[in-house]
């Protein structure tokens, strides 16, 4: 779908709100290392995989933030940043910009502020967030189900049908798991929960997916209580 850069679709969003979100991006400690200006040479676009398949341009991202165009920023924040592949091919920039890095910060601000576009982009992704935050590993063997990966081929069925035995038929003892990618110590998981708690990540989850937040909250508070920590995610 062509990207509408006129900003008409966000005309009712106050300019102050667009500026506020832009300021949040700019105050991130990484921002100054990700943006130095833009020659408009297009090397980033030539290297970008997403630009070949979407109406997406890392150059537009760099130009928009370099010009401090809050209206365009808001449009790209909602309608463009989730197309990025985050491969950092655009780090080839001769001006030493990292449009991919700027996009990471923009996405973070979109999530933190619970933008509807971010919620839509992450629809169906909640189970992955749950897995990584609750268990410490992201794509577990038991996620290989034919209904989740119908396009990967018949071996996905073979794997799910034989999952337990095939996992036990892998020599390293740490890989005999099915619900996590490897065996993770309880103490290690507890430490990870404390990190999420102390860095405000749970607040971000609450903004983007209230249901997921409540599930994670239950899991984490129970575990932390068992380990002797008096921690509330409220």
């Amino acid at each position, binding site marked *: 779908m062509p990207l509408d850069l006129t900003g008409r679709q966000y005309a009712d969003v106050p300019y102050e709100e667009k500026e506020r979100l832009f300021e949040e991006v700019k105050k991130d400690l990484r921002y100054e290392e990700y943006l130095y200006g833009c020659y408009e040479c297009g090397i980033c676009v030539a290297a970008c995989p997403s630009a070949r398949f979407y109406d997406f341009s890392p150059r537009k991202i760099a130009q928009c933030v370099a010009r401090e165009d809050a209206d365009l920023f808001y449009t790209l924040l909602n309608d463009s940043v989730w197309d990025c592949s985050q491969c950092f091919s655009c780090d080839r920039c001769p001006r030493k910009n990292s449009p991919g890095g700027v996009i990471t910060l923009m996405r973070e601000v979109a999530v933190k502020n619970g933008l509807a576009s971010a919620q839509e982009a992450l629809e169906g992704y909640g189970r992955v967030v749950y897995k990584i935050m609750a268990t410490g590993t992201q794509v577990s063997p038991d996620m290989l189900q034919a209904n989740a990966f119908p396009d990967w081929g018949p071996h996905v069925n073979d794997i799910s049908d034989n999952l337990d035995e095939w996992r036990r038929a892998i020599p390293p003892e*740490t890989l005999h798991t099915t619900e996590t990618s490897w065996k993770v110590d309880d103490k290690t998981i507890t430490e990870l929960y404390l990190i999420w708690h102390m860095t405000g990540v749970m607040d971000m989850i609450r903004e983007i997916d209230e249901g997921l937040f409540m599930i994670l909250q239950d899991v984490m508070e129970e575990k932390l209580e068992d380990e002797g920590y008096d921690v509330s995610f409220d």
Partner: protein
Amino acid sequence: MIPHSALFNRAKDREFKVDPKQAPTEDYHDILFQLEKEGEWEVQRVPEPYVEVDNKYGRKKKIPIERTWHHKSCGQCGHIPGYSTSVFWLNRQLGLDYHDPTDQTSCTAWNYYASATSNAAAQAAVAMRNFAAAAETGYFPIIHCATSFGHYKETRQQLIHSPELRRQVKKILEKLGKKLVIPEEIVHYSEWVHAVRDKIAARQTVDMSHVRATIHPACHYHKLIGEDAVYAPEVYGAQRSAIITSTLQALGMDVRDYSTWFDCCGFGFRHILVSRDFSRSFAVQRKIEVMKEEADPDILVTHDTGCVTTLDQSQFAAKAHDKNVGLPVMSDSQIAALAMGAHPYKVLQLHWHSTPNKDFLRKVGIDVEARWAEFEAAVAKIKSGEKSYLTWEDADA
């Protein structure tokens, strides 16, 4: 009139020279040790023996050979377990001391680059918790995933430049009862394979001199903080990262070039899980088909979780659209293990891969049916309760 040739050197007359002064960032070694002197953190030294290699701008990088702490990859261990198993198998065959920890979390960066449901402080704390756990064992971290590798390099950069972030992470680690300790080098496992490639080649039992290969370098290996990727004059004149190519050449393979070498695989982090039409299209149209048309390879070898996943799993659906696919995909650790005689199913675990690879195995002289029957017999023993697990001894029996 000034002759044209006096104004412009022809490309063939120009000589490419690696120049440390061209590096976009300062030498991290100096800053790591300076901050250690100032009491900001401890630096975990690379244990001896190590091999010194050059990174992109000719700076030296130490690659540890043993006493390595294996920072595993979610996607490798979860969905392509023969990848990491092969890394461990190589260590065991070479008689090298290593540690496979359970006090390790994912770097969580796949999720971060997919969903942004985290922030710089959380990501740095996760990294430094894992590094502290490694230091406590006395083993040196070696990173299996290119995204973890790239993300940890980014994190190192941020910690170096932000006293505020260091303070924040130090406070979190204190609460966890851990010290702030950073490794002298952030090392990707494929750099280790590169460093020991001659030892692997010396133990090679499977001839691969008639094999044509293409390679795909992982973006997060050589583009993300690209100055800390390994280059070598003998591989593309040090103008492309040496990793994988150097290993395959040491094994005698014919490594062939293709025009989209620099392109991403199409993984996309978010896309591979919830928007795979993009990943599939890119992997097939910009990588697999180009390789097949231009280089006619028997095998595609890569060195990252996402790249093996995308390039391998994307081919099944593309076949339905009559795309020119059917190129088996393996990691450099798997191909190195295979060359040293590892079992294709007990060690390489190729039944977790999608694109058919039996023709390739036959080409290098593997009796595919016999090896699969051996694996099935081992699984039958597990199913019957005769054995609980397949052990390392079983894998080599």
